[in-house]
């Protein structure tokens, strides 16, 4: 089955039995492909003694910790076929993930995102307000998860405006003008969760002015790490934005640069959903066995998309719980889950002080 054929399937209509069959077959095929085409990956699989012939379920296919993409250059296509290298956002000095994309994989990321997006926002292209600064795409050092997210969602834009200037100041007048121009149309607001909170919500509130966003949809992602420091819960975030500018639909998503395209969006019930194109497995830290529904564990993400790099099965550094499968009241099929935050750092003892700087 080609990925193009997978993409023909609706994003939330494949039930667990068919999904399991498809994922077991396809992920095994991808594992074998990457073993043949990525020598480092092949050595890793040999080291753990993985035998594809004995895997009868996609849960028994090995996963790579996402951090490996920061430490190794993992690529399953010829150098000349690399179309672009995507990097994760990292503050200066931090190592960043390097994700190797060929043309097909890059295009599939866009198509996948489009399929998932149209399920929640409709298939129409909309006027889009990007809650970020214009330099985020100009500055090569910043071209990262933030840039990729903006570029990815921009394909749904009919016309775009940046909400912030390069000093991160909210451009209320310009936004107001933009909204008047597209009065009556559904508007897409997109940004990283913390940026939306810090530079949109707080700045707008402080200005005492109002923006009429009663016909908008806000899509935001990127994690709650900084929001926890601000002590803002998802519920508080949603209601704050609704109260301040009447945004009726606020949609959080979960995703990572290592599996761009396959995002997990939040439904009307507040649950994150796996689409047809990817899946989550919650694993116990103690032995990496699969956790039961409702049990806290490490989130593994699998995706049928990554053919140009061995990123089809990844162990994240996030904790989460599986809430259910095929039975969310919103009507979407597939697994739905909750992200609980980053794995807690261990306080390692010992006389060497290098641990903190190692990763």
């Amino acid at each position, binding site marked *: 089955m080609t990925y193009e054929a997978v993409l023909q399937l609706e994003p939330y209509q494949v039930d667990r039995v068919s999904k399991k069959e498809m994922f077991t077959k396809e992920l095994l095929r991808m594992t074998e492909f990457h073993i043949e085409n990525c020598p480092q990956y092949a050595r890793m699989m040999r080291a753990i003694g993985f035998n594809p012939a004995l895997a009868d379920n996609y849960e028994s296919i090995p996963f790579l*910790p996402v951090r490996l993409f920061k430490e190794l250059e993992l690529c399953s296509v010829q150098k000349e076929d690399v179309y672009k290298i995507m990097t994760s956002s990292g503050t200066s000095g931090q190592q960043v993930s390097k994700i190797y994309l060929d043309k097909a994989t890059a295009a599939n990321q866009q198509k996948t995102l489009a399929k998932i997006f149209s399920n929640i926002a409709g298939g129409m292209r909309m006027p889009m307000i990007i809650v970020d600064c214009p330099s985020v795409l100009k500055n090569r050092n910043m071209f990262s998860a933030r840039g990729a997210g903006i570029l990815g969602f921009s394909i749904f834009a009919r016309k775009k405006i940046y909400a912030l200037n390069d000093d991160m100041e909210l451009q209320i007048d310009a936004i107001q003008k933009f909204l008047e121009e597209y009065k009556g149309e559904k508007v897409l607001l997109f940004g990283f969760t913390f940026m939306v909170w810090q530079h949109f919500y707080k700045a707008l509130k402080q200005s005492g002015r109002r923006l009429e966003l009663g016909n908008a949809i806000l899509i935001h992602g990127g994690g709650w790490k900084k929001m926890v420091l601000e002590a803002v819960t998802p519920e508080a975030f949603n209601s704050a934005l609704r109260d301040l500018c009447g945004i009726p639909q606020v949609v959080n998503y979960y995703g990572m640069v290592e599996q761009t395209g396959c995002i997990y969006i939040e439904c009307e019930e507040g649950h994150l959903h796996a689409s047809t194109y990817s899946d989550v497995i919650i694993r116990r830290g103690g032995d*990496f066995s699969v956790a039961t529904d409702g049990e806290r564990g490490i989130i593994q993400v699998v995706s049928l998309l990554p053919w140009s790099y061995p990123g089809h099965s990844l162990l994240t550094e996030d*904790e989460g719980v599986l809430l259910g499968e095929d039975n969310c009241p919103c009507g979407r099929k597939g697994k739905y889950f909750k992200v609980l935050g980053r794995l807690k750092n261990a306080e390692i003892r*010992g006389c*060497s002080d290098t641990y903190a700087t190692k990763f």
Partner: protein
Amino acid sequence: MPQNSNLTYVLGNEMVEKNMYGITALPIFSDEAISFLELLSKKILSDEESKKFPDVVTFGFWCRKSSVQKMAQPYKDNTCSLGRRIVFHIAPSNVAVNFAYSCVAALLAGNASIIRLPSKSFRQVDIICRIFKQVIAEQPNMEGYFLFVRYGHDKAINDKYSFICDTRVIWGGDNTIDELRKSPMKARANEITFADRHSFTIIGADKYLETENKDRIAQDFFNDTYLTDQNACTSPRIVIWVGDNISQAKNIFWQKLYDYAKRKYELQPVQAVDKITNLYKMAAELNIDIKMVDTEDNLITRVEVSALLDTLMDYKMNSGFFMEYIATDIKEVIPLCNSRCQTVSYYGINAECIKNVVTEYRPQGVDRIVPLGRTMDFSLIWDGYDLIRTMSRVVGNE
């Protein structure tokens, strides 16, 4: 109140600090020092709170009069050795009692000590400081020899103490050493640096299979490793097997360790992720066969390697990550014995064999050869330094 707001005096005060600049050194193993330690030991061993901390109790035992007298034996002929005067110690941030050993070594060598205590707060540090205070109250003549302080990464304070000390002792690894080296010392001052080190262990399979007390060995090995998250310089990262019935010995050894560690050690999920990441990194980057051994869970991660490369220790990991190798000749360990190599522990083989390899090949590393279970025992010979001789001077008389 201390004059510098970034600095807190935990033991001693501004006055002690001022007077220390004019203090007189003691002879090595002085009566004053031995009697101070005798009282310190008694108080530690009878203290209700210290009993809860095995590392504090071990320290108390180490300071006993009989123990100190034994330590003094090798220096009996040094009729005129005196302390250098002031030793400035930078304690490691994440080991509780290490500062106390460092301080006692300096005292036995005849010196006053300025100690930068660990930045992380430890109950053990509080207890030891409290008992030091009590002993000083009874032996006030010793008050001027101890100044224990706490401060953050403050170069100005590093500068001050570095410049007044006669010996600087830096624990805490390479980064700390680099940081402190930015603070100059007097021309005559010397320095002891404890850089990042690694260690390994050698086990004779046949002797191991013969022994009755395999549970005890498991416990000893646990203490060498898991007790410090396998992250001390002394913690073995590689287990080298020699002998005939190795696979049988391995099975029993790891099973016993598992049974013990399962009860005593709690592995955090992030540690499990770190270990599998490291395993994959080894497999991807090293040009030798890397084979993970199937285990019950993530508590013990075992990785069999097909050769002992000198780069193997670049992949050392903590939290129960063991590389394993079967050696047909003990000489095969030589690539591991570079300047970073500190402790070689052993069980079921003769220590002489290891010593012979070291004297024959003279690698840059291997500073200690100790029985399995004893890697954490502090001694006055540490990391290749004779601490007494390095922190004292000899008055020559021909």
